[in-house]
């Protein structure tokens, strides 16, 4: 399955394709796979080439996480070669191993570990080859800087190139191969510049929006004015005669102009007279809290312990509150685009999807061709934050290219990207807690209502990490007028907002410092460590809230990583300003500290946007803020000073770093606003609430 076929020279390490793949049992896995399954059991994971350089292969994609750099570091370190000697090939269904998709922060945790094992296996084989070549016992040899050398006599050595050139060796990855111990890394854990940075600063990096093929037609698809609207009829006679227009395609519900240039396609599309059916819904964002609560179904118990009845009976005091988060948009900088080309019955699609193999399966199924006749290439991807698992423009481009007989490009504009991608589910979460006057929480009942038909989104992060003896956490699936989808941490950010806000309310009620209060209720050492680290970095001075200082704290867990953040806010100006954020992350072994910190910083900025400004407004199926004039995201002048510390232990296996940073941000900001103003904001975005333009009056009691 590699572009460098196993018949090619060099040392090939083959391994299990779908690491950890088991037939989907949970709804999460079923939704993630969407019917896509591995096409082969084994694939080439790593090649040590005849020139001594190495290539590693993964079906993951690069969409900002820096995994190309991270995986390069892991392979180079384990193989004992310089970084420049390693090429990482990603996201191409013809040249990389099958992969379920790039989400859930699994790239370093799973693929990185697998490639390290592949590189360590290669190292073992190279030692064997070296022993033969040098006629020395393997026990006397070590790998260093691309060569096998005697520990006793450094002059006795052979480069990897000498050992593998002219030969073709295929070995299986050894699952139990000994990996380099944490103390012995030479590159891992150090700060290394990205190996794909030059392309990014010179404009040479190619994104799917940038793919231009000879003879390519530009498509402009007429989108319905709102969700649920269907095309009734259309008159395209004028459009068909416009300059540059090759064709106006009417295909079931799709109406598309194909033209020689993007501008000609867009101009022609504007003169098509199309009539659309009007969907019945007239719901707006203000109806959401009621809708969530009243349509909640399929209760799913995510956590249960003890007896709530006992807990509440024992409690000195009880608080019951409701928290609400609106729909928000992922709004990646690059709107989705795809280019499709048919050659001799074989289809190639360039698409910036997080799931190239999933898209391949979808294309084969929908176009009724074999998967082996489809190639999906994921070029550089301009952000996605989860939502680019869904990539409808791929199929649209493929259909249009087939009928036109020429390559076709379909690209969303900004409004299409905001409207036709997915939004993070709106959520309403009710929490009732019972606690003792000394601050021990003894009962915790949480009911979360998350919009949309993907229940796994809402479950993430709903469990409480506090040592509470009597707990019942339930999530429900509620109706959604908008299309919901993945977003950084899925429902984790919503569930953390509710829980960490509520914990702050208890701390204030019992008059305890918010950090001290949390520590009293935490036993898990990794939670305690991140919380203590964040407080130390922030120079947190203890005191009960509201202290008028504007300091807030929250902690959380996502994709196996522990995180805490302290924030300082100021509200003297016309709006809330976050001045400073101190965050600590424990993601175990950090392969690339700069990369991980960059991810946490970005997560904090994104979380700040959802905390303060972001909310999708809609009426019926029509988005009212599908552009950056009315959908406000953080900019340079809104950004606080952010300090990030990585406190994981190198002996602990790597967990995700791309998502957890977002989960404590909104609650820490809300808690800081309370600390400063005594106003408890239980609904996002905070700024709209403080301005009085929110839906708080309709939050059901």
């Amino acid at each position, binding site marked *: 399955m590699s572009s460098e076929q196993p018949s090619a020279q060099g040392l090939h390490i083959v391994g299990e394709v779908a690491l950890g793949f088991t037939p989907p049992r949970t709804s999460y896995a079923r939704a993630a796979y969407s019917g896509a399954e591995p096409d082969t059991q084994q694939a080439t994971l790593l090649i040590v080439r005849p020139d001594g350089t190495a290539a590693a292969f993964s079906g993951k994609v690069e969409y900002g996480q820096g995994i190309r750099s991270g995986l390069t570091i892991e392979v180079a370190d384990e193989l004992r070669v310089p970084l420049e000697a390693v090429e990482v090939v990603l996201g191409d269904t013809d040249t990389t191993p099958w992969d379920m998709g790039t989400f859930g922060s699994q790239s370093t945790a799973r693929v990185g570990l697998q490639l390290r094992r592949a590189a360590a296996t290669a190292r073992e084989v190279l030692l064997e080859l070296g022993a033969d070549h040098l006629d020395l016992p393997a026990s006397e040899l070590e790998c260093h800087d691309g060569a096998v050398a005697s520990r006793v006599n450094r002059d006795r050595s052979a480069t990897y190139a000498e050992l593998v050139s002219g030969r073709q060796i295929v070995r299986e990855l050894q699952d139990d191969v000994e990996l380099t111990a944490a103390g012995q890394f030479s590159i891992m854990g150090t700060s290394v510049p990205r190996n794909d940075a030059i392309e990014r600063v010179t404009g040479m990096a190619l*994104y799917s*929006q940038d793919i231009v093929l000879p003879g390519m037609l530009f498509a402009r698809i007429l989108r319905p004015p709102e969700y649920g609207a269907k095309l009734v009829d259309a008159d395209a006679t004028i459009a068909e005669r416009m300059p540059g227009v090759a064709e106006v395609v009417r295909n079931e519900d799709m109406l598309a102009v194909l033209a020689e240039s993007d501008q000609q396609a867009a101009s022609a599309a504007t003169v098509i007279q199309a009539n659309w059916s009007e969907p019945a819904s007239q719901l707006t964002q203000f109806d959401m809290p009621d809708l969530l609560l009243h349509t909640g179904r399929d209760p799913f118990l995510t956590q249960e312990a003890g007896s709530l009845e006992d807990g509440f009976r024992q409690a000195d005091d009880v608080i019951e509150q409701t928290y609400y988060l609106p729909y928000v948009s992922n709004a990646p900088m690059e709107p989705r685009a795809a280019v499709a080309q048919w050659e001799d019955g074989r289809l190639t699609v360039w698409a910036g999807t997080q799931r190239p193999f999933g898209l391949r399966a979808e294309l084969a199924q929908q176009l009724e061709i074999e998967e082996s006749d489809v190639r999906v290439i994921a070029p550089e991807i301009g952000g996605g934050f989860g939502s680019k698992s869904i990539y409808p423009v791929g199929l649209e481009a493929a259909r249009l290219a087939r009928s036109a007989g020429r390559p076709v490009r379909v690209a969303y504009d*900004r409004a299409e990207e905001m409207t036709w991608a997915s939004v993070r589910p709106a959520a309403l979460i009710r929490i009732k807690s019972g606690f003792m006057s000394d601050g021990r929480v003894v009962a915790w009942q949480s009911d979360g209502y998350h919009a949309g038909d993907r229940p796994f989104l809402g479950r993430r992060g709903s469990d409480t990490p506090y040592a509470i003896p009597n707990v019942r956490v339930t999530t429900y699936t509620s109706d959604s007028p908008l299309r919901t989808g993945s977003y950084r941490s899925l429902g984790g950010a919503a569930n953390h907002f509710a829980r960490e806000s509520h914990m702050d309310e208890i701390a204030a009620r019992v008059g305890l410092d918010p950090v001290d209060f949390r520590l009293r209720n935490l036993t898990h050492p990794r939670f305690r460590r991140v919380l203590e680290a964040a407080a130390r970095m922030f120079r947190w001075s203890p005191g009960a809230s509201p202290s008028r200082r504007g300091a807030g704290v929250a902690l959380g867990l996502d994709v196996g990583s522990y995180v805490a953040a302290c924030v300082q806010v100021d509200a003297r100006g016309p709006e809330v300003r976050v001045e400073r954020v101190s965050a600590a992350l424990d993601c175990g072994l950090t392969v690339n500290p700069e990369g991980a910190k*960059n991810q946490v910083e970005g997560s904090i900025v*994104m979380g700040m946007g959802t905390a303060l400004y972001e909310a999708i407004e809609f009426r019926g199926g029509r988005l009212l803020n599908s552009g*950056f004039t009315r959908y406000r995201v953080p900019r340079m002048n809104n950004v606080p000073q952010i300090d990030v510390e990585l406190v994981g232990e190198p002996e602990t296996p790597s967990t995700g770093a791309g998502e957890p940073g977002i989960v404590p941000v909104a609650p820490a900001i809300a808690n800081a606003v309370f600390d400063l103003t005594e106003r408890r904001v239980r609904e996002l975005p905070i700024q709209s609430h403080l301005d009085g333009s929110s839906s708080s009056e309709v939050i059901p009691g």
Partner: protein
Amino acid sequence: MIALVVNGEHCEAPAADRNLLSYLRFDLRLTGSKYGCGEGLCGACTVLVDGQPLRACMATVGAVAGGQVTTIEGLAQENALHPVQQAFIDESAMQCGYCIPGFIMTAVALLHRESEPSPAQIREALAENMCRCGTYQRIQRAVERAAAQR
């Protein structure tokens, strides 16, 4: 035909109303200038026209006829990166990288008119651009680094 100079090369655009960004990206294949919003709000398409920053998505080639257009592809000279480009690498000021060419062009224009910008001036100038990955703090440091090296 509309004559203009792009990265030092004489070019002829087909019509005055050709969108400048589309012309650069699709006719000249200079895809380093990015489409982000089409409304002049995100800055991903920023190019320099006679040294001044311009949102290419909002301009026609007619509007820049006779002008000197510089895109991200024209910034490096004789295989040496522009100091701003190098500073973005040194500060790891990127994630997905889609917005980065626009930020770099905006920063180059800032340093062109203000050789020693204060941190606040940098922040205000670059607030015209958007980075959804949230690498702002690193971008700020990169521009400060580039300014200090001049």
